[in-house]
């Protein structure tokens, strides 16, 4: 087989010159000097505007009488790819199934939102919230009470029929 | 049909056109009174009566009733087959089939109590709870219904002052809805205890109730 050599044509000077890019960059700089617009968010004084599909800290929905909506079906620990949900089911004296233990390890969580998607009773949600810094690791394991206390807005799930959330 | 103020209610063909008496139609010469116990085993032992006065704690299958039961039993190859007649007999004596009755019948026939319960609840004629002295079953099925059975039922409820299925305060009447009683040509058909009242219309209801209470008073 014959060896073929591909000959590359050198681009013309107009394309290789750095002058154009330099001027473009400088023009932006000067534009901001003349007309400064704010790009830095002054967090925490200013709070970011989170997208409706932002997936952050979990929260557990509660019934009007304060019981968790969770029925301990076990689907979220099953579906959880990070295996960060621990659930022990039980039954109260009215015969309602409820979680005796419900813990989410927010450190392990990858915030995929599948727990919310799989929940048959819309009890567990990921939330539009991200500020969950703590001083110790074990504080990142949220128990049931703490999940129920969360009051941030919940995430809007992606709807295939409305893929742009409009 | 006559508009006579008192229309003797309660038997088919009572339209004034016939020369048959109520007894002729009902076969009262045959069926009017309870035959003495222990006639031929094939017959008199096995069909139930609905007595007006019943004792929910009456002894079952003792004395002549034991004889009746034994005659019934002798007509069937298996003890189980005597279950329905035995329950009929128990209901005749006690008025309804209580759990205790089921238990007694079960041990008599060598069946499990649960089985007897399953069978007894399958059939609608076994009263699972006490009923009034007169159990009024109003047929509201199609043939009667198109001829106004709903009004008859409503009239019975109104005149006895009860709710459907409940017993009146004096313990006399329980009104229930019944399925077709096979007297479709004489609507509305009402069965009161064992007796059929046919061609009943809503305005006959007070008469019927009066007749029943009169019978009760007469003993």
């Amino acid at each position, binding site marked *: 087989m014959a060896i073929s050599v591909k000959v590359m044509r050198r681009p013309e000077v107009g394309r290789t010159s750095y002058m154009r890019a330099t001027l473009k960059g400088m023009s932006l700089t000067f534009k901001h000097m003349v007309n400064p617009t704010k790009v830095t968010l002054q967090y925490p004084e200013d709070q970011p505007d989170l997208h409706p599909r932002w997936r952050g800290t979990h929260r557990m929905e509660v019934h009007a009488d304060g019981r968790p909506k969770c029925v301990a079906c076990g689907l979220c620990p099953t579906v959880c790819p990070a295996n960060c949900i621990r659930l022990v089911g039980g039954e109260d004296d009215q015969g309602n199934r409820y979680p005796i233990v419900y813990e989410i390890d927010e450190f392990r969580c990858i915030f995929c939102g599948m727990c919310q998607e799989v929940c048959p009773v819309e009890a567990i949600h990921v939330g539009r919230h991200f500020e969950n810094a703590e001083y110790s690791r074990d504080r990142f394991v949220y128990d049931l009470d703490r999940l129920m206390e969360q009051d941030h807005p919940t995430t809007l799930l992606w709807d295939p029929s409305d893929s742009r959330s409009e | 049909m006559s508009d006579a103020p008192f229309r003797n209610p309660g038997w088919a063909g009572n339209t004034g056109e016939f020369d*048959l008496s109520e007894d002729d139609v009902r076969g009262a010469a045959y069926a009017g009174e309870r035959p003495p116990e222990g006639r031929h085993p094939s017959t008199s032992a096995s069909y139930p009566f609905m007595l007006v006065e019943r004792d929910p704690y009456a002894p079952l299958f003792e004395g002549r009733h034991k004889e009746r039961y034994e005659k019934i039993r002798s007509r069937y190859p298996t003890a*189980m087959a005597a279950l329905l007649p035995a329950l009929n007999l128990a209901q005749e004596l006690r008025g309804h089939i209580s759990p205790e009755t089921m238990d007694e019948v079960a041990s008599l026939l060598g069946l499990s109590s649960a089985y007897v319960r399953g069978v007894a609840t399958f059939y609608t004629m076994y009263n699972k709870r006490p009923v009034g002295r007169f159990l009024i079953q109003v047929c509201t099925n199609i043939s009667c219904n198109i001829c106004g059975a709903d009004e008859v039922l409503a009239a019975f409820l109104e005149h006895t002052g009860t709710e459907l299925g409940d017993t009146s305060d004096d313990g006399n009447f329980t009104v229930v809805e019944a399925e*077709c009683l096979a*007297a479709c040509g004489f609507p509305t058909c009402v069965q009161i205890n064992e007796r059929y009242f046919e061609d009943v219309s809503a305005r006959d209801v007070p008469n019927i109730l009066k007749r029943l209470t009169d019978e009760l008073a007469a003993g």
Partner: protein
Amino acid sequence: MAYPYRHEKETRILSECFGDPSARTVAGWKKHGGYQGIARALEIGRDATIEDVKASGLRGRGGAGFPTGLKWSFMPKNTGRPHYLLCNADESEPGTFKDREIIRWTPHQLIEGCLVGSYAIGAAHCYIYLRGEFFETTQILARALEEAYAEGLVGRDIMGSGVDIDITLHVGAGAYICGEETGLMNSLEGRRGEPRIKPPFPAAVGAFGMPTTINNVETLAATAHIARHGGEWYRQWGTDKSPGTKLFCVSGHVNRPGNYEFPLGFPMMELIEDVCGGMRDGKALKAVIPGGSSVPIMSAEDCRACTLCYEGVEAAGSMLGCASVIVMDENTDIVKQVRRMAYFYTHESCGQCTPCREGTAWATRILRRIEDGLGTEDDLDTLIQISEQMTGTTICVLSDSLAMPIISSIEKFREDYLALIRRGERVGAA
């Protein structure tokens, strides 16, 4: 004219003594030729009796119309096991009231029929399964039976022939489904009256596990006459496919409801207009259910040319069933009546098969909703589909029995449904 209503066009074979209390005794019945049928049967033998019944072309009067002689011939011979004849007197099909009349006017007619049937199939024991509600009827039959026993007509060595036939009355306790033959057998055995899966058929494994034949009251009563006069005699009435006479139970909006006996093939309109004295209060005919509540409803139009025989009613799009003609006038609320029937079937479903247990209840609830004015047009499609899902999928035909009136009523009276759904108007609810 005496009660019950009679009509000069009638051919009275079974109903000859209706209204005549004297025929309730053995002596009275013998005056009308009673007990000659069984006497002749005993004389000519079993096989010849079955042949006679076969020749007569008698079809079961309980609803299905199966040839009786053929049914009898299915019974195995010389098995050494007891055979049973069951007489189905658990008459509970809405619209039907012929068996009760037969028994209470002519109890010996039935007893004789039972003797003929038992003798023909080699049964030493016949059970008459009576409806629990039939108190008077049972007593009349019981007295007649006692008398027949006393006269040696039933029991050991009947009429000196050496044949033993016992007859026992078995009183039911209120369950429509016990009118189904296998349900009846279960009930007789002291079980819940749930129909059994076939095969095995009753002729092989029936009551108490023994070969069994089940016949309707009217069928057995007719065999008493056939045994007396022979098969060909019976064929002088009726049509080729539906020989003989039949009791037609007419109920509903006619002037003279009752049991009328006619040869099969009698025109329906003549029955309604002439025999039954026409529609009550001169109203117009709206619909007829020709065979008890389990058959398709016929519109007034369907009735015009309909003749009352098995094939004639079938041609008109329905079934003769047990010839219980329920006549409805223009003021009838079809939706309500279908709902009432649906409720009946829900109430009487034994609960074994899923399509029947759930389907009947569901259909009732949908019909109830439509009746309450909360229905939609989709509900009609749903009802038809439910009905189709209930047809032919269960052990017995109880769910089919509901499916037929639902489907036919929606087909023929769709306007009534739509008026209720669209405008909340109850057609016919005057």
